[in-house]
């Protein structure tokens, strides 16, 4: 995760993209090759730094002894956490709205799929229970039941999956008014727990490999819905890309196998590592995804 390990990616920014990535890879800014950032690489880099963060802040206490490592079976990134079972991610966002409004929207769990990308639906069950349906990678779904375990109107909602879920998971969202009319701080913590050690693989089913990036984007979408009333997108817009395959310049769009991009964690943590070493980023080599597709997310 330090500058020394930075590799200069041949970017996808067009014909002459190396300029930026090269210029930026040398020093303190060795954190990105923006032109070809792979969310995969990013997620793991964040995960990696999260390890260090967790262990230094003490939040990693419960996670000690994980010896987190990242493997790359068959080109797919999976965080493998041998012998242990728990990942925690946190993120917060300021939203220009009242705690009441935000609480009300979130408390109706059927709204969650509107801003949580990986959810198909959340339907009310008996009492405090809700049935969650999640998109599994490669098609299909993962389902489980969860119950609300605590709620304080306009302040917090906590939920937890019922026994029997593939990946035990729980979450808590807190709403706190910010001073001077600055809206509300929304703070989310999610925890995933898999019996049997293969948490990484199990987790990938739920969040697509990148729990931290996932929660970041989900909360961003929540904010966008609550403030702007819609999630900005370019999906479906026009572009002169029909014949893109014919252009030589189209090549960097997909890119060849290259390093994932080292990225500092901007927030939150994922798991703790006993020595705080953030190995994930350095090993997060992955085939970069189609940048165009990323950009359309």
């Amino acid at each position, binding site marked *: 995760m330090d500058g020394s390990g930075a590799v200069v990616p041949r*970017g*996808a*920014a*067009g*014909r*002459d*993209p190396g*300029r*930026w*990535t*090269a*210029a*930026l890879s*040398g020093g303190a*800014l060795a*954190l*990105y090759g*923006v*032109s070809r*950032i792979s*969310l995969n690489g*990013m997620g793991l880099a964040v995960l990696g730094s999260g390890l260090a963060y967790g262990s230094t802040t003490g939040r990693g206490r419960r996670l000690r002894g994980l010896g987190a490592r990242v493997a790359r079976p068959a080109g797919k990134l999976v965080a493998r956490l041998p012998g242990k079972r728990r990942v925690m991610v946190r993120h917060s966002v300021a939203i*220009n709205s009242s705690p009441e409004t935000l609480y009300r929207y979130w408390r109706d769990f059927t709204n969650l799929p509107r801003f949580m990308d990986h959810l198909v639906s959340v339907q009310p069950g008996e009492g405090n229970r809700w049935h969650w349906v999640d998109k599994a990678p490669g098609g299909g779904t993962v389902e489980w039941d969860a119950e609300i375990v605590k709620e304080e109107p306009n302040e917090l909602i906590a939920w937890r999956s019922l026994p029997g879920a593939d990946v035990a998971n729980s979450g808590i969202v807190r709403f706190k008014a910010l001073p001077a009319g*600055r*809206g509300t701080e929304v703070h989310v913590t999610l925890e995933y727990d898999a019996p049997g050690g293969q948490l990484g693989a199990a987790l990938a089913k739920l969040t697509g490999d990148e729990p931290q990036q996932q929660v*970041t*984007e989900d909360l*961003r979408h929540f*904010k*966008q819905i609550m*403030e*702007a*009333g*819609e*999630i*900005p*997108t*370019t*999906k*479906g*817009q*026009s*572009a*002169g*890309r*029909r014949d*893109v395959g014919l*252009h030589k*310049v*189209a090549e960097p*769009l997909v890119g060849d196998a290259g390093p994932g*991009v080292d*990225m500092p964690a*901007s927030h939150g943590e994922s798991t703790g590592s006993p020595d705080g070493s953030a190995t994930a980023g350095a090993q997060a080599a992955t085939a970069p995804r189609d*940048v*165009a597709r*990323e*950009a*359309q*997310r």
Partner: protein
Amino acid sequence: MKAVCWYGKNDVRVETVPDPQIINPRDAVVKISLTAICGSDRHLYDGYVPSMQPGDILGHEFMGEVVDVGPGVDNLRRGDRILVPFNISCGRCFFCRRELWSLCDNSNPNAWMAEKLYGYSPAGLFGYSHILGGYAGGQAEYVRVPFADVGHLKIPEGPTDEQVLFVTDILPTAYQAVEQCEIHPGDTVAIWGCGPVGQLIIKCAQLLGAERVIAIDNVPERLRMAKEQAGAEVVDFDRVHVLETLKEMTAGQGPDACIDAVGLEAHGASLDAIYDRVKAAGFLATDRPHVLREAIQACRKGGILSIPGVYGGVLDKLNLGAAFNKALTFKMGQTHVHKYLRPLLERIERGEIDPSFIITHRLHLDDAPHAYEVFKNRQDGCVKVVMRP
């Protein structure tokens, strides 16, 4: 429809692409009546801006007629003639509420990219790279306008397209650049760059009460326009030493405010400028800050440096020591266009300013590849190109 698409450095083409559609509730679709090439597009054309993708539709200065509106837009209807600001802004976030429109929290679908680069993401822009949203631009027959309910200004009968078009970008950019200079009676303002932005800065500086306006460039036609049409004193950096000349012109004190209207592609023959070129060419730096350095050096103690010229990456050998020890104030950023729409339209209607004097080339959209070439190389006295689809 036809649209101007970017395929790489020095490679734009007019392609036939699908017509834009309403995608989000607050969208509108506009049929373009007039569009322009901006100095910022030059940075794309020259390959200086990362995260462009082949096929991206360019253009962020445009106006036209509303042909479709989404269900979330209640203040526009078909047939309205509107200007569209180049920044895309939600109107409801912390930043929009404070009139910091170009910093909108909610308009960049690729905010995560910008966060890696800048810490936090600015607003999405039309036709200006995927880091800044990846939105299709308006050098086209039609364009999709997100958040159209806040992102428009209706134009009444009266002013022509050419008179009002620049309210979408370079006129407010010039105005904001000058406003940032907090001009006091007797002030001298020095402007680097006599491109379209520089020319309008000269006008705005006069409008906002500058005593003297000094403009710097080396392109003869542009210097002539700055002098004869905009009314500035001019300095040709090919002929004189800029720092000494400015000192001499300001009683040895330096200009009260300095404006960098050149940005990351500054030219120069001085040692530092050559050094910048070599570094940028060898990918060791991204931007060429020759003008920024010179402006810092030239500015009087306690003065203001206003930077409308675009920077995007990292700068090498910046004389921050000079800035610090002279206690300069820096102001910069993409323009908060929405904030200036109405006031500037009113100034145009009152006849206080007519920005159309900068237009030197009126072309058809089909001629875009040629237009980019002419604008880039400043052929035929080119200052500003407008194109009609």
